[in-house]
């Protein structure tokens, strides 16, 4: 399977990859984007099976990225990994079609809880 990870922090993208591995998800192809705009382009070109995205990013934030995908008719499972998680943000994420929202800092168990239904 193919997983797209979008975060403007290279360090955080590496940590997400490491945590996915610790959660038991190995052997998947990982593609990375530095912001929502790059994520959108990669999602169109690479057709990933799961997208994990930060919320606050330059160029295009995570919510705009998700809305643009859905506007294109792309229904790829999409989850946020973000520092902020106010009730308002959770509602916006769900209404836009996000499957989950994991807050930083996170554990492998957090990823298992939300990603098991999408990943082997």
């Amino acid at each position, binding site marked *: 399977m193919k997983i797209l990870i979008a975060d403007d922090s290279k*360090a955080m993208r*590496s940590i997400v990859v490491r945590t996915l591995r610790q959660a038991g998800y190995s052997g998947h192809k990982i593609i990375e984007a530095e912001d929502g705009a790059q994520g959108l382009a990669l999602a169109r070109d690479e057709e990933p099976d799961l997208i994990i995205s930060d919320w606050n990013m330059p160029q295009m934030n995570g919510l705009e990225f998700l809305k643009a995908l859905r506007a294109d008719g792309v229904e790829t499972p999409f989850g946020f990994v973000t*520092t902020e998680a*106010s*009730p308002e943000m959770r509602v916006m994420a769900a209404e836009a079609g996000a499957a989950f929202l994991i*807050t*930083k800092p996170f554990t492998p168990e957090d990823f298992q809880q939300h990603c098991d239904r999408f990943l082997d």
Partner: protein
Amino acid sequence: MLHLPTPDATAKLLASLLGRPVKVGAGKVDDAKLTIAGTYRSGDIANAAMCLMDAGFGAYAGAALSLLPVAVATGYVKKGRLEEDILDNCGEVLNVCSRLFTSDDQHRVTLDTRHFAPEPLPPAATALLAGGKRLDLVLDIDKYGSGMLVLAVPG
């Protein structure tokens, strides 16, 4: 209104982020050594909170985040400033520290600006250090080292 966390809550969040024990240590913060700052926005309010670090905490936390060798961090501590390859890591620590200023995610708190030596601290940070409410900590990151961290909100 944002609030200051307890020392234990701060150590616990950082331990979770860095994947290793973080303990509150003895010692006093020297404001003159605080050379790293993050300013936070809450809704429309800029400078709603600050996080300041010395080069030691910034280097050790940044290195621990990506499991970089301790020697890399120690080199920055000796120089007294961080360099490009670890700034992103330290910035992510500042980003996650935004969670310390709100309970149960009731307020939106976003990392707004980041400042690293040799750039001077922003005036808002020095003003908050002088007149705000602050939590001064010396924190020890297991197998890396200790450094100073100050969290501040308007008084």
